[in-house]
């Protein structure tokens, strides 16, 4: 498949500056990212459905969600991840206007907020395991750890991508013309955030 529209005359197209010469006028990377995020909806849909399917189906006498969940603690984690979405768009806005110093500050802040979320999740998992909940104890434990573990892995990958962006920016390899790279990482980051919005409601808040 070619990215360009081939005219029978073979003459060169007039492409607006700043627009990629693709048939849609959109970059393949951005279309690819949106298609990837659409497919991720199915992955997390499957994991959330599995959790809902197994909710309340655990062996009697084994650990239940309300025995272990600490809503105030998880609310703070959710707030941290939500605010990381704000710092991510501020990083994008900064690079789009060519302010590299602020771009680096906001990217690093986003990575730190993401790392705080992952650290919080590790602490939460440790607390749960100490309370007797693990992957094998019952259906609730299995589906909970698989769902939140997959999400945590996504956040970790996002943090690594952000740190790569930060490193590229420090080396001067992230000019204004590469603002779309920041936008693509941002799209992934916001997606991870919206998945957590759903998980926080479905898993933690809905009794």
């Amino acid at each position, binding site marked *: 498949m070619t990215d360009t529209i081939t005219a029978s005359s073979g003459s060169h197209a007039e492409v607006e500056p700043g627009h990629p010469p693709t048939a*849609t006028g*959109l970059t393949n990377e951005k279309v690819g990212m*949106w298609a990837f995020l659409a497919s991720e909806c199915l992955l997390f849909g499957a994991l959330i459905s599995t959790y809902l399917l197994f909710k309340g189906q655990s062996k009697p006498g084994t650990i239940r969600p309300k025995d272990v969940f600490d809503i105030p603690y998880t609310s703070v984690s959710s707030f941290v991840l939500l605010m990381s979405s704000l710092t991510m768009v501020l990083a994008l806005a900064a690079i789009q206007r060519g302010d590299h110093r602020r771009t680096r500050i906001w990217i690093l802040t986003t990575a730190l907020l993401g790392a705080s979320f992952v650290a919080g999740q590790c602490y939460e998992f440790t607390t749960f395991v100490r309370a007797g909940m693990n992957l094998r104890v019952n259906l609730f434990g299995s589906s909970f750890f698989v769902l939140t573990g997959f999400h945590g892995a996504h956040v970790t990958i996002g943090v690594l991508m952000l740190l790569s962006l930060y490193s590229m920016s420090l080396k001067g390899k992230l000019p204004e013309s590469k603002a779309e790279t920041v936008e693509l990482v941002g799209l992934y980051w916001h997606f991870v955030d919206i998945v957590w*919005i759903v998980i926080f409601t479905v898993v933690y808040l809905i009794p």
Partner: protein
Amino acid sequence: MSDHGTATDPAPGPVVNPTPAEGGAHAGHPSELEYIKVAALLALITGAEVAIYYVKSLKSILVPTLILFSAVKFSVVVLWFMHLRFDSRLFRRLFVTGVCLALFVFTIVLTTFHVWTR
């Protein structure tokens, strides 16, 4: 698969001239102040979600309210932070297809297993 042609090296073919509403360009993206206002709204809704969780008199409407709040937060992030409100309609269609497909498939799965009625 060929991947020739860059913005500086126009490829053969007709004029490709999408408007900002159809994609490309950052025109129409919100200002930083607007992003901060959106984030404040999201924080407010999160606070309301947690508050309503502890109000015993609202137990009967807890689930629909939480789902509504969650849907609002989801939409706000997607429309403003992910720029679907301002970007190409193609992105909107791609993402909405994924979300709708997931909702459709997993609603059928959960209904098949009588999750709603147990």
